[in-house]
């Protein structure tokens, strides 16, 4: 081997080693968090944890069933409100948004994307909680939806833009009106990406605490009324982790583990959908 080839070989090895070390460092944080949660939280996971509501402070036992159900309700409502609006906005941006209005919508979405989530919570409080004079699951869902919309709009736009122009032309040349081309060909082709984007967006907001502080408020009792204050896992963690009781800390760890697991499951489903995208027929 010539000197030059040897030098290249060695440089290649060093660089490869370096990036391996760096990627391990990056992933390490995730494993530390997950490991810590499992060590501190897993022991508290039992049947009661998932089925019982909290007991008065100081007593032991009880669970976070109210928070798990509440998370489902708030995030579900947020998805019902946010996904159609976000995906619709994204479709508009990609298909028709080349003009001034498109530019404006895109700009606002980007600003909204960078807005601290607590500000969104205050917005929810100002526009929903104060006029209706009550904290509610709906208010929390709206706040989460507002967080979700710009995210979904931009991912949907990216996904729709990935659809090859030739497919659009093929549909138009077959005599498809433009709106039908957008809906039947473009949206259908981008569907996998849009679903993935939506799931990632849902997973993102499922862990939010700040926007819910002034809107959903939290509730120590089991409640499924969407016009009443409601508990979510994130709020539960916030209250329990900052509280003075050992029992609360224990439950906070377990709640954190459950929340993490929930987000993980949604992400895995998103991954699975993405993989299905290419083999899909009809």
């Amino acid at each position, binding site marked *: 081997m010539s000197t030059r080839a040897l030098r290249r070989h060695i440089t290649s090895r060093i660089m490869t080693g370096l990036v391996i070390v760096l990627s391990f460092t990056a992933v390490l944080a995730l494993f530390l968090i997950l490991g810590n949660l499992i060590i501190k939280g897993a022991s508290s996971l039992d049947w009661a944890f998932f089925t019982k509501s909290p007991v008065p402070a100081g007593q032991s036992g009880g669970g976070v069933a109210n928070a798990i159900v509440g998370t489902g309700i708030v995030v579900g409502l947020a998805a019902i409100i946010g996904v159609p609006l976000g995906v619709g906005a994204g479709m508009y941006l990609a298909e028709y948004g080349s003009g001034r209005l498109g530019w404006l919508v895109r700009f606002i979405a980007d600003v909204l994307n960078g807005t601290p989530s607590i500000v969104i919570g205050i917005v929810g409080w100002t526009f929903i909680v104060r006029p209706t004079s009550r904290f509610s699951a709906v208010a929390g869902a709206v706040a989460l939806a507002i967080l979700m919309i710009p995210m979904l709009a931009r991912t949907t736009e990216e996904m729709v833009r990935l659809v090859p122009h030739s497919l659009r032309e*093929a549909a138009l040349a*077959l*005599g498809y009106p*433009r709106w039908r081309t957008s809906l039947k*060909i473009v949206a259908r082709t981008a569907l996998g990406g849009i679903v993935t984007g939506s799931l990632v967006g849902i997973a993102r907001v499922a862990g939010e605490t700040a926007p819910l502080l002034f809107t959903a408020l939290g509730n120590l009792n089991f409640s499924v009324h969407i016009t009443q204050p409601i508990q979510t896992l994130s709020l539960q963690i916030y209250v329990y982790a900052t509280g003075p009781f050992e029992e609360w800390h224990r439950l906070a760890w377990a709640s954190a583990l459950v929340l993490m697991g929930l987000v993980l499951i949604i992400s895995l489903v998103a991954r699975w959908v993405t993989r299905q995208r290419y083999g899909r027929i009809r």
Partner: protein
Amino acid sequence: MKLASDSRTVGPSDRAAQVSQTVRPSDRPTPVLESRAYNFWYGTNHALHDISMGIPRRAITALIGPSGCGKTTFLRSINRMHDLTPGARHTGEILLDGASIFGPGTDVVTLRRRIGMVFQRPNPFPKSVYDNVAYGPRLNALAHARELPDRVERALRQAALWEEVADRLREPGTALSGGQQQRLCIARALANEPELLLMDEPCSALDPIATQRIEELLVELKKSYTIVIVTHNMQQAARVSDYTGFFYVGNLVEFGVTQQLFTRPSDERTEAYITGRFG
């Protein structure tokens, strides 16, 4: 209508050479499509200058010329694919069966159903082979649901693809080979039973074998369809077409019977191009 009249008149020495031609100037069919002094601009770029030509029925018309000379632009004008291009405008007329394609009575959706198009790269929808072909008839309600399978089969047979995909109709169209995909796109266009089939360099992304199959197919198809094909491949134009138009910097330099245009071009630019002096 201007056809071979644009080229030099056929001399006696050419007669022998033309016996093998399917179409002789004497039995020249009436044009399906006629372009009259058609001009086209992309913004300020004057892309097509006074294009006047008639596309004869049940024949293959090839449009040749160097890149960027307006062949594809003209082709795409015919089914109004420029409608959505920002800054595009035109003057002059294009008539399909005597009616202006730009006229207020012409619906662009109906027009595109009557004029099929096959693109440079195969672009099947990410759906099954069957659905790809059924797409047009389904939309245009051309066939009852129970006739649809027949119609799909007929289109696939016409595109010489049926034998290869008969047992793979439910597989995704994108899983076929490049040449098969292109024939699938041809079948998709034929399923609408168009009056005119536009093909924009349909073989440029294919290997020689697949190209040959498509060329054979074209010759077969012209028995029932009118075909306009843009090609960079002069041999291809010479092999398959009955009429050839030579485009150069946005002008239709010469248009006439293929045999004649290739053997005795009347314009020196045509001659320079077909003899390979530029392009």
